[in-house]
């Protein structure tokens, strides 16, 4: 079957097996391998990308379901020569070790800042009506869908907090 995706602003017309996941489309068909497959079942977050501005696990959705959608991957945020603000913050704070979960952490992190900005509550928000803001507890809960076995969690959250401060 055929599907058209716009990835990082560039249009891709794919001809593919119905079973192709959005993740495999991005990695193996389009060749953007920064997005990683850690579990293929939505249990680790390494495959996190933005679809129409919202973060999702690209392993748990079919490419076919995204005909016409706008996808942003880690490569869409910056390059080694010109890293995006969140990417630069992760580098500055050592928000990674092996680097395998990193794309997912960064894609999630940039979405989390927007989710907090929109006032969306989380499991640890003390009130559902007014969100506590950028506390470490809020970041930790909202980032919990992104596992890091190196356990760089403290540095990841420092990086997110730093990027959030810089954005203000």
């Amino acid at each position, binding site marked *: 079957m055929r599907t058209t995706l716009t990835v990082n602003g560039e249009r891709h017309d794919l001809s593919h097996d119905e079973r192709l996941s959005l993740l495999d489309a991005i990695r193996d068909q389009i060749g953007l391998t920064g997005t990683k497959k850690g579990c293929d079942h939505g249990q680790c977050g390494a495959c996190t990308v933005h679809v129409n501005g919202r973060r999702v696990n690209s392993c748990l*959705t079919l490419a076919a379901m995204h005909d016409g959608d706008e996808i942003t991957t880690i490569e869409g945020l910056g390059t080694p020569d010109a890293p995006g603000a969140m990417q630069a913050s992760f580098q500055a704070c050592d928000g990674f070790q092996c680097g395998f979960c990193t794309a997912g952490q960064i894609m999630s992190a940039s979405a989390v800042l927007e989710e907090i900005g929109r006032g969306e509550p989380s*499991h640890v928000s003390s009130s559902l009506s007014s969100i506590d803001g950028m506390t470490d507890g809020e970041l930790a809960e909202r980032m919990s*869908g992104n596992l890091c076995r190196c356990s760089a969690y403290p540095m990841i959250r420092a990086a997110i907090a730093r990027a959030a401060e810089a954005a203000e």
Partner: protein
Amino acid sequence: MRPFDYRRAETLDSVAEGGRIIAGGTNLLDLMKLQVEIPDTLVDINRIAGLDRIEPQGEGLRIGALVTNTEVAADPRIRAGYPVLARAILAGASGQIRNKATTGGNLLQRTRCPYFYDPAMACNKREPGAGCSAQGGVGRMLAVFGTSDACLAAHPSDMAVGLRVLEARVEVRGTDGATRQLALEDFYCLPGDRPDIESVVQPGEIITAVILPAPVAGSVQSYRKVRDRASYAFALVSVAAVATMRDGRIDHLSLAYGSVAPRPWGDDAVTDALVGQAPDAGLFRRAADRLTAGHTPHPDAAYKLPLLRRSLQSVLHEVTGLSEAAIGTDKAEAFA
């Protein structure tokens, strides 16, 4: 994953033509990759108009089947009038999954019993009559109520527990286009000897909405989820409560329990024994004992009985004001 025909439905009528419905796909694709689910046809309903809205209905709300978990939990009307539903949703899965998972799909998610997930092990839910590997297997996550010899699996949804405690109704559209509404306890089937049949939804039928009744004005609502890790894990047990007090006594009370049964669990006798009473630790302890009396679960899941008793007592303390409300306990307010 086996090959399938992919079809995009633009109207509800075309759903009636049959095929397995996919909306968010966060559980269905998970199971298809393992060849636990092997649909011949996938019907993508994401482009059917009108199912992605939360609208007033009577004094309550109508949540379209395609509204995502994130959208429900973030909706100001839900947060104000039905905080226990927002809390239940936010206790489940991850931000990424909640962005994709839909209201209808969440209700129809399958058990996470490891034997259901493993085609190498016998499972009556996958193949009726094949046997239940959980009997004699490992089973920390199994149900303790409502099971049968054929199946010990628990329903894992948090959202559905929130819906049950709010006495929500599920709207199902039949193949003839007519809709019917069902309470959660009628929507889900207990396993009996056919654990493969989990709800009353028939092939070609579709969940179109969930209907919330008017908010319980002035109620205190709580969702307590106990799990092995602090986030991103299925519940060992969960308790949802909606309570109002009058003159120092429990005036209205609704309770529901998660991850302890094949469907969100309720026990009217326990609730009835509490209504009209003044909150008291001893009263709560007796209610908790009553909830779990007479059940003999799989040995690995036996801990769920004391854990549920303790969790229920803790929640009752909070919603009746006997102890200070912690995060997860909120006061419902009227919404515009």
